[in-house]
């Protein structure tokens, strides 16, 4: 690893640890810092322990995992599509995953109470699988389109596909609810607060597997930055690489959709910051930077959402949009990177 990658990674890690401690300490109930840390290790006041270990810690870990998954997913998608505005949210993969879950829930609702009970019993794995199906279909569709469309057109098509899938999801869940089998509410907003201590492994295991695979695909994906023919001439089996990168993206993204909903903008903007910090588009150094950067951004958004506001919580995607959308606008207007990809 080049020195600047190591330094930046360490700086991001320190910031992430600091923010984690902040998020565990402050909220609707402010705890003394020492007590929050003590209750992490099972000592101290019982009430404080419950708040920290059972409410805040799962939420914080979910934010860190989901942010890392989306950040690294963005790096993979941008390399795979050779498109600087590609990410799971912007190309409609997250909405596709939601639609997959909605279809499954609706099917269960119409199939009868036994199916609903089954789905509820295996809630974690079954909704993740349903989301994975939706994400895979959306990704395959976008890959097929990506060969024909320019970078910006693909972005617009992806956003429209996302709206379509979200509309369908909403309508489906309306009927599923009427049929009396509403298992999961439709997430029109993203949140890390829905993750329980017992569902956390369902999020963590696929995401960690995805991160390992991402590291393994880094070298051939860097060659793919030169284009398909050059990658092939460098010994990369492009078809196999595409499938592996797609599988990795699904592993990273599907559990996020299933447990946290459509978290916007993180995957789109974090890879750009990572490239800025690394000073290079080589994929391997980008993975730690994008994972830590994504985690930091997700946790920061979550910290703002759960700050002790007088009235109710803010919406996570509102915060991410305020940060993310201007970055995307700047990219579209000023990025020299986009010129070649137009």
């Amino acid at each position, binding site marked *: 690893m080049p020195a600047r990658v190591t330094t930046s990674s360490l700086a991001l890690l320190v910031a992430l640890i600091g923010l984690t401690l902040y998020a565990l300490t402050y909220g609707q109930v402010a705890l003394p810092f020492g007590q929050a840390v003590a209750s992490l290790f099972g000592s101290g006041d019982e009430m404080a322990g419950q708040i920290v270990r059972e409410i805040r810690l799962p939420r914080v870990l979910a934010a860190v995992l989901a942010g890392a998954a989306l950040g690294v997913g963005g790096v993979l998608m941008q390399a795979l599509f050779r498109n600087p505005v590609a990410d799971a949210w912007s190309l409609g993969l997250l909405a596709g995953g939601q639609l997959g879950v909605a279809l499954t829930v609706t099917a269960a609702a119409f199939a009868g109470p036994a199916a609903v009970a089954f789905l509820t019993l295996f809630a974690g794995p079954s909704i993740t699988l349903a989301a994975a199906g939706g994400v895979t279909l959306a990704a395959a569709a976008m890959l097929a389109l990506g060969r024909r469309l320019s970078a910006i057109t693909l972005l617009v098509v992806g956003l429209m596909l996302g709206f379509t899938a979200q509309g369908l999801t909403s309508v489906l869940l309306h009927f599923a609810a009427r049929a009396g089998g509403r298992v999961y509410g439709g997430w029109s907003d993203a949140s890390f607060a829905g993750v329980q201590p017992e569902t956390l492994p369902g999020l963590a295991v696929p995401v960690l597997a995805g991160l390992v695979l991402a590291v393994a695909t880094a070298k051939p994906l860097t060659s793919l930055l030169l284009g398909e023919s050059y990658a092939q*001439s460098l*010994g*990369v089996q492009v078809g196999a690489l595409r499938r592996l990168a797609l599988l990795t993206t699904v592993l990273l993204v599907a559990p996020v959709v299933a447990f946290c909903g459509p978290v916007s903008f993180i995957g789109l903007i974090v890879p750009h910051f990572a490239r800025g910090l690394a000073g290079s588009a*080589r994929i391997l150094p980008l993975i730690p930077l994008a994972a830590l950067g994504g985690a930091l951004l997700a946790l920061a958004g979550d910290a703002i959402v759960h700050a002790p506001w007088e009235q109710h919580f803010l919406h996570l995607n509102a915060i991410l949009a305020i940060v993310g959308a201007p970055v995307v606008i700047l990219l579209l207007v000023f990025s020299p*990177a986009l010129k070649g990809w137009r």
Partner: protein
Amino acid sequence: MLTLDSLSVGYRGGRKPVLGDVSLRTPAGRFVCILGRNGAGKSTLMRTIAGLQPALAGKVSLDGEDLAAMRPGLRARRVAVVLTERPAIPALKVDDVVSLGRQPFTGWEGRLSAADRDIAAEALHRAGAARFMGRYFDHLSDGERQRVMIARAIAQTPRLMVLDEITGFLDLPGRVEVMTLLRRHAREAGVIVLLSSHDLDLSLQLADEVWLLDGHGGLNVGPPHQLASEGLIGSAFDTPDVAFVADRGRFELRA
């Protein structure tokens, strides 16, 4: 030694092969120019030889090894390509692009050894691209990028280099410089260099050997002066407006 053995190239489902039943042998260290009109099949032939697309029939072997049957990772150590397409690669530095040429020789991380770095630096020098080191690839002009891509191919330390119409964006001195550096590299490193070009004048002056595609599925091979004196250049390129004059070695308008 590059051997084409009854090679037919083209696209499956096409009515007939772009180029049919070609057999030839080219020894190491040769600088070969591939000439032919647009659509004669230069790119198809070169992509097939480089293993980027399958042959319709026949085989291509390099030093006795069948290139199509070779593992892609191993083929990448033998054959390097430079293509017409101009990749836009945001945030990739010239050094990164050139060191990608060492990827077939590195482990899963792609970490470069000191020897790999030396080879990459040497390749940049050979391609006349050393002064671009440390700059972003996307900030270079078309001609400069082409030199970096040549350096990347040299860094791959191949036995066969396949370069498809890479001199199009260069002015005349630039083209002469690139073609002479490739010829020098062929001689010094014992590499076979295949270059397709629309630069007839330069190609006929610089090539050790010319592969001339006649546009009707045939290929003539020989030293440039021989093809010229046999009138083959003329029959491949002449139109009602322009004709090749063999004893002057150039095209003239039929006024």
